[in-house]
Every structure is written in structure tokens, then in C-alpha cells.
């Protein structure tokens, strides 16, 4: 899938270069967007994407983004994860970014809820699209229009000291864990998540950005994602996991320079959870 993210990104960037910027100030019709067809073809080929009449998935964010470098987005499943029917992947796409596929997030029935929150960069006003892939292969899509990138707001340009690279932090919404129910956790990764699109970027270099994140609990998958430089610097994820008993929450992160970072924390009733 990482191969797809890479190869797909380049082709789409080439396609975009041939389109003139429409520069709409008001929300365009998502069905008529010239940006979407080439992305859809690359990512999903001829598969049918159902208009989401079933309300399988929703995208939450502010129409007027506050900071183009840090736009929080929430993608929420509206259906339960069951063994019979579940969302196995959520694709998050920033249609007008040079590399539109921001991330592919994989879920299982044990995920509890198919939901992910992250922070995105925006190069321009754009639709954010979320496509849910069901266990039977059906696809459902929702989207929101976002006005970002105005004024002095810029998608790139923050810096990070190298010594902090790969440092991780976990924050929990609750102070203690509750077994047998979905618990929300935030994963923070110190990483510049470089965009190769900066004007000073040497084309011979491989830009350094986080490309995969694997979260397990006692060895079982919780959340797995392939991601891209459409994510903000210091990539940030919020997701659910459902512990049945005491165990180890483990994070494995890999970047485009093949560096591996890991972090883990023991989860148990009675042990206070970090977060404040």
C-alpha cells in the first residue's frame, strides 16, 4: 500500500499540474470536482463508490480551517463494528494536496469503533474525502469542503530539533482504563514530516516523513495506518482500543528513511493513564 501512496502521489501531482487552479471562494459541487476522478481511478479503479445514503461514515472539521499547517479532522463510523459487518479501512484524502492520499487506516471488529482523528496540512482550499471500505468490499464516501491556506497561513514551515526525532507520547481521555469497552487514546509522534514540495528541497533527497504506524495491544492489531506528508508535522492520531485485561499497548513507527521508532505502555486497572 505504501507503494501505492508513493506512485499514486506522483501521477496525481503530474495531473494536477495540467489543471488550472479553479480558486473557488465558495463550496463547489463535490460531484463535479475535476480533482476527484484521477484520484478515484488510481486508488479504487472501476469499483463503485456508493453515495453514503446509509450514513456509514462522517467527516467532521471546521469549514474555515484555522491554521493550514494543522487542521484537525475526525472521521467517524456511524455503524457498529461486528464480526458480520465491519469497516476494514478508512481512506482519508485531501483532494487538492499534491499528494492527496493522506492516510489509509485499517480496522478490525476488535477495534471497537472505526474512528480516527488526525491533523492535516492543506495546500489550498479543498474537499476532504473519507472512503470507508467494508469487509464485503463495498465502498462508501463522505466529504467536507475546507477553506484553509488563507493569509499568512502556510502548510509547511515549522522546525524540530533532531534530538527529539521519533519521541512519542500517549494521552488518554480518561484517567483510568475501563476493560471491555472502547477507550480513546491520542498518539503523538515527534517528526518534521517533511514535505518534498518546499522550494529549497533537494530533489535527490528522499523527504523524511512517517509512512507507517502500527498499534497493537498484547500483540493483537488495534490500528494500523499508512500515511503521507499531508499529515502535519508531529503526526498525531486519536483512536479507540478495547482492552479485555491488563496488557501492553505497543506502537511501532517507520519513516521514509527506514528509521524505526517504538513506544509502549502497560495498561492495567488501577494504574493512572497519562494524559493531563
Amino acid at each position, binding site marked *: 500500500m505504501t507503494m501505492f501512496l508513493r506512485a499514486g502521489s506522483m501521477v496525481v501531482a503530474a495531473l494536477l499540474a495540467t489543471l488550472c487552479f479553479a480558486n473557488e471562494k465558495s463550496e463547489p459541487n463535490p460531484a463535479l470536482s475535476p480533482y476527484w476522478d484521477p484520484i478515484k481511478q488510481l486508488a479504487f479503479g472501476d469499483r463503485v463508490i456508493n453515495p453514503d445514503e446509509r450514513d456509514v461514515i462522517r467527516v467532521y472539521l471546521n469549514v474555515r480551517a484555522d491554521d493550514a499547517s494543522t487542521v484537525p479532522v475526525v472521521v467517524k463510523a456511524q455503524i457498529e463494528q461486528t464480526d458480520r459487518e465491519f469497516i476494514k479501512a478508512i481512506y482519508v484524502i485531501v483532494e487538492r494536496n499534491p499528494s492527496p492520499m493522506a492516510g489509509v487506516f485499517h480496522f478490525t471488529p476488535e477495534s471497537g469503533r472505526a474512528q480516527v482523528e488526525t491533523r492535516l496540512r492543506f495546500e489550498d482550499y479543498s474537499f476532504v474525502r473519507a472512503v470507508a471500505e467494508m469487509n464485503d468490499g463495498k465502498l462508501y464516501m463522505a466529504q467536507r469542503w475546507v477553506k484553509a491556506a488563507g493569509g499568512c*497561513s502556510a502548510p509547511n514551515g515549522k522546525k524540530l530539533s533532531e534530538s527529539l526525532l521519533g519521541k512519542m507520547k500517549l494521552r488518554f481521555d480518561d484517567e483510568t482504563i475501563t476493560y471491555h469497552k472502547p477507550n480513546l487514546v491520542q498518539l503523538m509522534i515527534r517528526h518534521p514530516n517533511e*514535505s518534498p514540495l518546499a522550494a*529549497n528541497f533537494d530533489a535527490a533527497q528522499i523527504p523524511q516523513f512517517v509512512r507507517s504506524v502500527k498499534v497493537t495491544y498484547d500483540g493483537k492489531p488495534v490500528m494500523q495506518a499508512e500515511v503521507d506528508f499531508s499529515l502535519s508535522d508531529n503526526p*498525531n492520531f486519536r483512536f479507540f482500543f478495547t482492552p479485555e485485561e491488563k496488557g501492553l499497548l505497543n506502537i511501532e513507527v517507520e519513516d521514509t528513511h527506514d528509521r524505526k521508532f517504538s513506544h509502549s505502555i502497560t495498561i492495567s486497572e488501577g494504574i493512572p493513564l497519562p*494524559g493531563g
Partner: protein
Amino acid sequence: MIVDLPVRQVAPGNFVHYGSFEERSPQNLGDNANIGFIVGSKCVMAVDTGGSFAVGRALRQAIRRVTPLPVCYVILTHVHPDHFFGAAAFVADHPQFIAHKNYPAQLAARSRSYRNSLQRDLGEAAAGSEIIPPTVLVAERLQIDLGGRTVIVRAWPPAHTDDDLTVFDELSRTMWFSDLLFVRHTPVVDGTITGFVAVMKELRALEFDHYVPGHGPDDLPWPQPLDAQLRYLTVILDETRAAIRNRKTIQQATDEVGLSEAGHWVAFELFHRRNVTAAYAELEWE
């Protein structure tokens, strides 16, 4: 086309044009920041050039109405497009373009998106606007003689951006703060909020007779505008830290933090949530 860019002589030899608080548009041509110039006996120094070529050209004409002396220096006070997109209007004068040592890296990372958004917001009115790279970088402090008038350019640690310069005219004791000081207009944090607060405490110790903010008028007696901005930033700092301590999300923080400040600032709805977003992303690592 700006026919006659109004400037006011705030102190002998120091001329300021006050930009509009509106969002930039084809009508205002990106004339949204305070810009101006300082005139010595040999040379003129422009302090920022405005948000488009049209504004830069109008500033150059305003200089010509005052003096025939050459424009030897153009200060690029920081990396924001409302301050620098008029620089192309001065290229033919072959001035030194002076910026902070951190400016080139930030400019490179942002230039593509700044060009696109200028085009989107101004359309044809953006014509001629270009990004001009600096020719002189300042690491700490640079002293410039304009002829009978010494100007001190000072580079600050990360605050409003990570490449803020101030300009001080020693003769008239005029301090040009650029965007280290917003008056009435909501302050903007694009560098670091902790750094901005620390730098403001240093600004408090400076001595001068006249001040020029980056946005807004100079009608409040000193140090009122500085105290107002410090209060705003401290409220965001304290309340965002509290939100993080109380396990609130970035969305909850942007909905709740700093609302007591809403009545005090122009364009609050455009910039306040952005400031809280940036503050949260910085402070959650503390």
C-alpha cells in the same frame, strides 16, 4: 492601481502607511500591513513593502514624493506575505534586501503556497508580485548608516514567527516593531507562543519615543498596547495549558480558550482559533 498611498510622518524622517484591517481582496490589493520608510541624508530604507506589487509600487511613489534619494535598503521584517509581496517594486533600485537568518528556510517552505493563495485572493490584481530573496541576513544585530541617521536592525528569537526583525531609528528614537506588536488587531502566533511571551517581556525594557506597530494605529499611550497584547497571549497560554491538563482535545480547546478576549480585538474570528490551535500543538509536548 493605488494612486496616492497615504503616509504619515510619525517622527522626523520616519513615514508610516497604515494598512487596512480587512481581509485582502482585489479591492484593497493586499494593503493590510503597516509599512513605511526612513529617510537619511544619503539613503532611504523601506521597512516592508506591502502585500502586493501594486502596494510596493505605491510605497515607492510615496517615497519619491518625499525625497529623490536612493532606496539603499529594504527590510523584510518577517516571512508573511502581507509584508513582503511588494518587494519586486524595489528591485530596479538594487537595494540590499535585509532579513533574519531564519528567513530563507521559512520562505522556501512557504513560497509555493503563498503564491497560490495570493493568486486566489487577488487574481489579476496580484500581477507583478514576486518573492524576492534577501541579500543580507541578520543573526543578532545590524547597524546601518543612512547618512546622519543610524538605524539598528535587531533579530529576535522565535516569537510571532521564527524570523522577526525590529528596526530602531536612533535619531528620532522611533521603534518599528512590525508584527511583534499588534494594536487593536488580534495578535497572530505563527512562531511559538512561549517565545512570543518571552520576547514581549524583553520588549518592555526597550526605551524609545515613538512606536510603529505591524498592524493597527499608534494612538494608545505606551505601554498600553504592549500590555494588552501580553494579556491576550498570557490568557491563551494559561487556558490552553489548563485545557491540556484537563484532557481536552484540540477542538475543545479552540472552542473554549480565550473567549474573554473576544470583545477586545478586531478580526478575532479570523485569527483567534488559529492561535489556540498553534498554542495547543506546541504546549501538548511540554
